[in-house]
């Protein structure tokens, strides 16, 4: 690392603890969310493009409750813990992109709505053997107005090998939403997914700036 850490004690040296710190000029954090069902390859995708080993963290959400329990007490709150992992890409000296891998199940969306507000956009990762998992995520993103692309993570033991056209039809995906193949294990492929998303966001922004 740079000379800036030369006078810090060894115990606090980030390199010694396996951490890779950002540069001092880093000033803008950005977010992209990867959603999809369990085992679809979210963590694998994050790992393949991240400059750090994916880290895990959790948020505890407290919802104001409406129930009354057996003892007649008003149960004021329910608490839910949701874990998610994330990786990081330093785009340049000033900008750093965080990639969040988030389970797409229905019961977690109240959390995503809050945690992931202000995201650039989302990647919906699809396993064609379990396409049902994707519908809810797509529906929710559409509703929320979060722009997204759909990436099909091809597993080797997927005998059916549906074409992208078939998958688009099955997901009732509008033509305006980009749909691509990927291999979450491969860095160039993961990178291509992100470029496809941001290119899509760019086209959307361009159209909006052109039509005031």
């Amino acid at each position, binding site marked *: 690392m740079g000379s800036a850490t030369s006078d810090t004690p060894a115990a606090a040296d980030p390199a010694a603890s396996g951490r890779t710190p950002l540069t001092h000029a880093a000033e803008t954090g950005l977010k992209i969310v990867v959603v999809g069902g369990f085992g679809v390859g979210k963590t694998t995708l994050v790992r393949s493009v991240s400059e750090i080993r994916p880290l895990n963290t959790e*948020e*505890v959400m407290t919802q104001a409750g409406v129930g009354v329990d057996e003892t007649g007490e008003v149960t004021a709150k329910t608490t839910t813990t949701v874990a998610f992992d994330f990786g990081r890409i330093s785009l340049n000296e000033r900008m750093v992109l965080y990639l969040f891998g988030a389970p797409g199940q229905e019961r977690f969306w109240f959390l995503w709505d809050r945690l992931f507000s202000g995201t650039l956009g989302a990647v919906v990762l699809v396993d064609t053997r379990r396409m049902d998992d994707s519908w809810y995520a797509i529906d929710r993103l559409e509703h929320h107005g979060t722009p997204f692309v759909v990436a099909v993570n091809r597993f080797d033991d997927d005998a059916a090998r549906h074409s992208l056209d078939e998958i688009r039809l099955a997901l009732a995906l509008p033509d305006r939403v980009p749909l691509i193949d990927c291999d979450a294990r491969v860095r160039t492929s993961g990178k291509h997914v992100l470029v496809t998303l941001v290119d899509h966001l760019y086209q959307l922004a361009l159209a909006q700036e052109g039509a005031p």
Partner: protein
Amino acid sequence: MTRRPVDTGAPDRLYTVTGGRSRADDSFDLVTLVVGECEPSAGMQSEHVRILELCRHPTAVVELAAELALPITVVRILLGDLLATGRITARHPRLGQSAATHPDTALLQEVLHGLRNL
């Protein structure tokens, strides 16, 4: 101080960490970059010490939470303390929390450029 359990899943430990508070500072986004403005000093709570050590370099809230193995909400509470006493500064993301703020083409071009250079 009124002693009420904090709603954080593991009340005992987290109660201690936050001093029983459960209201977090909402201004800290997941990707707000936190920068330490001083060195830890004697008598500081160990979590505050750890945050100041990590924040010798800009560090995102979500990374702090992962490193401290604490929920985001708890980390926001701790950061609120440090911010209020001027021990840290915060570099908030340009994209607001509201869905109304869309990224502009210039920003997206920078992101694209960065990704293509990976």
